[in-house]
């Protein structure tokens, strides 16, 4: 017997969606877009004057944050002068330690990092990710949501996600006042699917995440 949850899923529009081919000229591309800026870093007297095609006066808040808290100017000239391909190869070379890659990456601008990543294929990216992963025991995070904001459905989906191995779950609500209910549904569901699994990882969060984020700033240019 097919459960109502699965039969209702099968009729959802999301199931009918097609894969979208990249449209680089519109920016719909993961890496190597034709409009990506040329990597560059201008430093004068210990201050960043230009980064990736922009004067410091034109920096948006993300550029500013990268410059103030992300870039290590001690390594920048060494790292920025390195060949993209050489850096890409270091990412997949088991003889290059994580510490060296972390040191160099702090001297790279976002455009340079994007160039390097753009040279790797999916399997190489996975190896690079494994090399750079800071966690001793990796755990994956999942978003569990549903349009109806039905707590029973959320709990069932959370149970399935935990059962399938997700170590942490998060939800997004359409109606803010349902947030506590969704959080409880997620907690009950995840612990039912794999009791205690989520708190087992020392480096992970303890217990299911109960935060419901209403909005996300990611991807917006301020």
């Amino acid at each position: 017997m097919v459960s109502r949850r699965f039969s209702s899923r099968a009729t959802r529009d999301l199931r009918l969606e097609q894969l979208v081919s990249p449209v680089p000229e519109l920016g719909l591309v993961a890496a190597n877009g034709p409009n990506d800026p040329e990597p560059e870093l201008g430093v004068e007297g210990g201050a960043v004057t230009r980064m990736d095609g922009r004067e410091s006066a034109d920096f948006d808040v993300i550029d500013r944050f990268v410059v103030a808290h992300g870039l290590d100017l001690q390594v920048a000239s060494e790292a920025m002068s390195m060949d993209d391909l050489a850096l890409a190869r270091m990412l997949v070379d088991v003889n290059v330690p994580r510490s060296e890659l972390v040191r160099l990456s702090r001297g790279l601008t976002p455009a340079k990092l994007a160039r390097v990543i753009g040279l790797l294929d999916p399997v190489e990216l996975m190896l690079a990710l494994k090399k750079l992963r800071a966690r001793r025991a990796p755990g994956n995070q999942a978003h569990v949501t549903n349009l109806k904001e039905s707590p029973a459905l959320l709990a069932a989906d959370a149970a399935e996600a935990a059962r399938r191995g997700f170590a942490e779950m998060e939800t997004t609500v359409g109606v803010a006042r349902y947030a506590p209910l969704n959080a409880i549904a997620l907690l009950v569901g995840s612990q039912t699917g794999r009791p205690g699994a989520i708190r087992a990882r020392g480096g992970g969060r303890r217990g299911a995440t109960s935060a419901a984020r209403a909005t996300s700033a990611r991807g917006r240019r301020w």
Partner: protein
Amino acid sequence: MSFDPIRDYPLGARRPDLVTTPAGIPLDGVSLDALREGALAADEIRATPRTLRLQAEVAHASGRTQLAENLERAAELAAVPDDLLLEIYTALRPRRATAEELEAWAAQLDGFDAPKTAAFVREAAAAYAERGLLAHG
């Protein structure tokens, strides 16, 4: 025994003697039994500034500078009441606060002996001013 940020991580397993609740209850006193007996209030189950500073030392020692700085700010914020934190969080969203209001929040943080977080708020205020993200007062 002195604290060694490389040897003593994770704190809960290697140095439970250094971890307590805000009221000073030792780590092994944080149990379901203690909760049932009423010996443990809900607001006792949180990190103390001291624990967070030790975690920051661990992060520094393993070369995770940004994480260490986060933990240092967290240590400062452990003393700040939750509702005040939420108000500051809201004020930092785009176009929610004027330059004067952000400066007032930074000054309040200074009052809680949270200079790093106060500097963070002032840095945001300067960036918001240039990018047109302040509220029109």
